[in-house]
């Protein structure tokens, strides 16, 4: 009896879009995009590890670690964004809605520009002090 009641409430929900199994090509494209995000995150992590493990001390002591932390934060955001994005797109293609907007590549680009400028500054300061 309680179950019947619950079903009635569930059916009256107005904003439930019927979901269906999407064209498998959309599913696979979404899957590959997710993996591309994860690889981007792993590339950033590799850069973070390399800058701490391999790069000799720069002109400004500790600058290496700042750069490494920045890259690791960027890697975390990228990996998290990839996962979130996969879920969003999966929901969208199941309910046949347009894909949600995607500002993440712009953030990533800004982050990479900051890392690039910082690196450039460190290289120049090293060249000047040497």
């Amino acid at each position, binding site marked *: 009896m309680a179950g019947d009641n619950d079903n009635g409430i569930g059916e009256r929900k107005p904003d439930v879009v019927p979901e269906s199994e999407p064209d498998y090509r959309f599913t696979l494209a979404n899957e590959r995009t997710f993996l591309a995000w994860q690889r981007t995150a792993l590339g950033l992590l590799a850069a973070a590890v390399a800058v701490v493990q391999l790069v000799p001390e720069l002109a400004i002591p500790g600058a290496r670690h700042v750069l*490494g932390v920045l890259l690791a934060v960027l890697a975390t955001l990228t990996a998290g964004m990839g*996962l979130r994005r996969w879920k969003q797109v999966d929901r969208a293609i199941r309910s046949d809605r347009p894909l949600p907007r995607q500002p993440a590549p712009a953030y990533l680009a800004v982050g990479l520009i900051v890392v690039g400028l910082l690196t450039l500054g460190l290289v120049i300061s090293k060249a000047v002090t040497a």
Partner: protein
Amino acid sequence: MTSLGPRNRQNGGLQAERTALAWTRTSFAVLANGALLILRDFHSYAGLLRLAAAGLAVTVTLSTYLIGVRRQRTLGRRPLPQRITPGREVHLVGISVLVLIFTSALALTL
């Protein structure tokens, strides 16, 4: 210029292959990170943590690679299974990559 015939349109050309290769490529990216972690000696306490992070990377590499192999088998089946969304696999790899990033960052800042 010929368009895809009905047979090829039905099996989606090389979609399945590309997807399986994307998993494999991702597993190599994880392995590369593991290798970077053990480039320097690991006799200190921080070094042991780096070694642990590298061990985690190897585990994630193996599971990602195996997911790729399983995926290739699933997507090669005809007719294609009704439900092919890799929800569990995506979550497993996504969370593993996040854990790997945290562990590596921790090992390197100590």
